[in-house]
């Protein structure tokens, strides 16, 4: 950045908070005419001279955090631009923090289905969270606090207060702006769903009233569920956060100003462009590392906020962050933001592994060996969400697979590329574990429960939600590589990203893009894998080789001379129909490839050769990841007992050791 650019940036930086404050001033109280509301065209936080998204909202928030009580008081001026083409008189708002109340839908579901963070065996005060609107005013109309009404569009749970709506006495015409002035009070829970406090750490996620999205001719503003995430419109964020002076802070967007106040507090002012959410964190012990990445659209400032005990892993985190950026820019498209903040959250908090625009949380432990790549995996995954959620802003309530699943697939590709295909999660003392296998295992236990195309809160349980949205989608796309080719699928994802970034695409937008780029009709595959619950399970049911003259007395088999009648029987155990390759190996070294369209339930192949079958294998190139059981995909004529003996020896060693341990201490 040149000196001139720096000065220009500082000038604009000093103006923007002023603008925000001006917008926060109550209408009619200032001198002269009230300026017409608008959404600024700022590009302070992106490496682009013009806005990249259609900006629907502008949030100006002034908030003060009470670190002792874990509460926050804020005022929010929300400018909404009606680009729906319709007159709007009803506006729904998310109040996500109200999910953490004992009768709320989120807690009810989490208790019934299980949750990543807490089992809710008993309700504790620290689990409580709330987002209370103290006053609600529509600029030019007046105070409508009394008109606010909680609604429960998904399950009718009257005790759920995660969505509130207001009906305006005067509708907003197409193309017009409306401004909501909201005063709110937050109580953060001890971290749940990656938001809240833990010890003296706090992560502010989903912490302010957020308007719903007008999508496909209706408001899309779902209740907060235990298995759902979020959906919001793009816009501009100007946020002033006041915190105690001992706190180290980080947030989405660009830090514009930092002021030390006389009352022992400090105020940080952040600005974000073309983002659809804003998160922040504060804690007294963060150690911060600054770095840069030279992206295709400009320099990206990397900020790593590490826990003190993890400081020696700072380079690991910086490295994977840069490598992820490099892979995504090369494969899918440019990263346009000027900043990226990686937060290593408080140990033991439920704040690890989360994505917000230009702000992600990782997850590691102080003892993490360098050959276990879990920290890298988390960072890569959350970074990937900058693309699949951050920029390609799909509806996480209704199409969770489109952010988590597509992201899991790209996670496999990036991790494989960096750490190797079968070692991309672990490569420790000869024990290996690959990311693609991990995704497949996630899915195979719930293969027949839910389709990918299902509302996130309507899955059978949290296992099915996780297994299908993450694991099945990744396996579905990895298997799709076999049909269209790895390079074609990469191109399709690139096209999809470039075409739909800064929009809210649907599942059909994604699937049609793949068909378009590959030039193939893939409905037969999508209908089963995306819209269906068909189970994929092919097996080599039987193989045999018998001498053709078996009936003669005293037959002596001679290798290379005896003629054998060989048979291979394949069986489609599941209801997923998919063409497969089969490789049959003979004891003279010959390998035969056959193909089967899989339409019938079984197929037989027969051969007469001067060689016996050694083995038959379905999918010999190992390109199918949807198959629920890989063990039955092959069969050998002669058993190989060595693998079982090896593992039995391991187990025997453990048992002997345990026996000795018992005898050591008791006798």
């Amino acid at each position, binding site marked *: 950045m040149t000196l001139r650019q720096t000065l220009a940036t500082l000038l604009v930086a000093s103006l923007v908070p002023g603008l925000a404050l001006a917008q926060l001033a109550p209408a009619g109280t200032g001198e002269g005419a009230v300026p017409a509301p608008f959404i600024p065209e700022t590009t302070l936080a992106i490496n682009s001279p013009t806005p990249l998204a259609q900006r629907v909202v502008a949030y100006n928030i002034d908030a003060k955090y009470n670190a002792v009580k874990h509460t926050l008081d804020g005022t929010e001026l929300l400018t909404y631009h009606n680009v729906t083409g319709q007159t709007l008189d009803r506006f729904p708002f998310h109040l996500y923090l109200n999910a953490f109340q004992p009768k709320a839908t989120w807690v009810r579901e989490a208790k019934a289905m299980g949750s990543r963070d807490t089992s809710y065996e008993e309700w504790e005060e620290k689990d409580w969270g709330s987002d209370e609107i103290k006053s609600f005013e529509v600029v030019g109309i007046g105070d409508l606090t009394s008109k606010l009404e909680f609604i429960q569009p998904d399950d009718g749970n009257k005790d759920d207060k995660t969505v509130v709506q207001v009906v305006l006495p005067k509708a907003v015409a197409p193309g017009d702006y409306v401004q909501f002035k909201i005063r709110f009070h937050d109580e953060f829970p001890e971290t749940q769903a990656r938001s809240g406090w833990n010890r003296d750490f706090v992560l502010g996620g989903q912490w302010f009233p957020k308007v719903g999205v007008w999508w496909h001719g209706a408001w899309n503003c779902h209740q907060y569920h235990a298995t759902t995430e979020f959906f919001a419109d793009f816009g501009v964020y100007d946020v002033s956060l006041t915190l105690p002076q001992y706190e180290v802070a980080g947030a989405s967007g660009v830090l514009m100003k930092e002021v030390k106040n006389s009352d022992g507090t400090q105020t940080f002012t952040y600005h974000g462009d073309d983002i659809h959410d804003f998160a922040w964190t504060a804690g007294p012990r963060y150690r911060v590392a600054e770095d840069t990445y030279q992206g295709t659209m400009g320099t990206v400032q990397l900020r790593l906020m590490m826990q003190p005990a993890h400081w020696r892993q700072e380079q690991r985190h910086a490295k994977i962050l840069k490598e992820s950026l490099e892979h995504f820019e090369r494969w899918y498209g440019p990263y346009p933001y000027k900043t990226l903040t990686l937060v290593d959250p408080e140990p033991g908090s439920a704040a690890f592994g989360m994505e917000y625009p230009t702000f992600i949380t990782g997850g590691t432990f*102080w003892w993490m060996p360098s050959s276990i790549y879990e920290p890298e995996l988390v960072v890569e995954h959350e970074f990937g969400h900058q693309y699949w959620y951050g920029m390609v802003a799909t509806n996480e309530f209704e199409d969770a697979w489109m952010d988590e699943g597509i992201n899991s697939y790209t996670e496999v590709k990036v991790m494989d590329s960096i750490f190797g295909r079968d070692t991309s999660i672990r490569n420790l003392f000869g024990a290996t574990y690959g990311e693609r296998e991990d995704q497949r295992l996630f899915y195979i236990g719930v293969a027949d429960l839910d389709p990918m195309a299902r509302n996130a809160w309507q899955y059978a349980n949290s296992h099915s939600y996780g297994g299908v949205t993450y694991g099945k989608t990744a396996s579905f796309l990895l298997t799709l590589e076999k049909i269209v080719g790895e390079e074609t699928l990469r191109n399709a994802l690139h096209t999809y990203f470039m075409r739909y970034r800064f929009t809210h695409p649907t599942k059909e937008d994604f699937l049609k893009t793949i068909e378009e780029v590959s030039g193939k009709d893939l409905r037969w595959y999508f209908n089963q894998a995306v819209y269906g619950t068909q189970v994929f399970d092919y097996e080599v049911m039987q193989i045999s080789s018998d001498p053709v003259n078996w009936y003669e007395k005293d037959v002596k088999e001679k290798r290379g001379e005896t003629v054998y009648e060989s048979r291979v029987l394949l069986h489609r155990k599941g209801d997923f129909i998919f063409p497969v390759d089969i490789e049959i190996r003979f004891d003279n070294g010959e390998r035969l490839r056959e193909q089967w369209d899989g339409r019938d339930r079984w197929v037989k192949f027969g051969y007469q050769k001067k060689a016996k079958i050694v083995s038959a294998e379905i999918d010999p190139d190992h390109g199918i990841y949807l198959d629920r059981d*890989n063990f039955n995909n092959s069969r050998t004529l002669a*058993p190989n007992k060595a693998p*079982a003996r090896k593992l*039995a020896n391991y187990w025997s*060693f453990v*048992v*002997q050791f345990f026996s000795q341990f018992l005898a050591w201490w008791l006798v």
Partner: protein
Amino acid sequence: MLKQDTKLIFAGLRIVTRNKGYIFWFWLLNLTLAEFGTAAFRSRLHAALDSSLLADRLLHGFDHGVYLEMVARPEWGPPRGSAVPAMYFSFLFFLVTLFCMPGVLDAYTSEGKPSREDFFRCCGRNVWRFARVLVFYGIVAGLIGGALLSGHVALVHVSKKSTYELLPFYTHLATLGVIFLVLTVIRIWFDLAQVDVVVRDQRAVRKSVAAAFRYTQQNLIALLATYVVICLLGVAVLAGGLWVWRSFVPPSNVLGAFLVTQVIVILWLGMRFWQRACAAAFYMRETPVEPPIPATAEPSPSSEFRSPLAPPVDGAAPPQG
């Protein structure tokens, strides 16, 4: 003190080397029982792996994903199907060890090697006494260990509230270290009690327990140091064995892995026998030698169990003809 400790360790080593056959038999017993205990697991493995090419990824390396898929298959069945038989056979090994240990201690405290008959006679004579010692041990170790474990849990719980992330780890380390040392002291105490029961042919085991408590109390540092040093050697043996296994045995070499693991098991077994031998050596060195029983005196309690062919207590030659 150091010299005394070293002497004790080497005295124990001499005893255990002189009687190394016992280690072999206990190892063989452990291996045999482990084979029975792992039979269910082995048959499941053969059913899953023998005819599948996927098994190669477990033979040539260890693909964790393949292993997880194998045990996740419905055909594999519940995990307890493998674990429960193994635990039963481990318990059986414990019972056999309990039964045979008097014979081993008898050998460790004798100059010569007892005959097989004497070995099992000693085992039979002391089996209920050892069971009673075990009950005493269970009460003492249970109460003290339980209290320490509760303290450990409480301290770790408190340490987790700290903002210093490594504190719970250090708390774990420190409290588990203390628990280990205390349990080792208790183990020494009851090892000596067992030796006392065998050497004195003591029916009233409470007297042996009380006597052993006094010996332990008076020589705590020397005994504890001996036990801990041997224990650390055991840890070194385990670490070294695993390193050899990892470094020199190719993943697909099943026989090589078997041999290395069995050497580790034997050496570990040897460590425990070494500790016991040290306890025996200490006992023989420290306890006062009782005056020989006069010929006219009442028969000793043990004599009623002795075979007429066995040598008399005073060491005189058995009657001929």
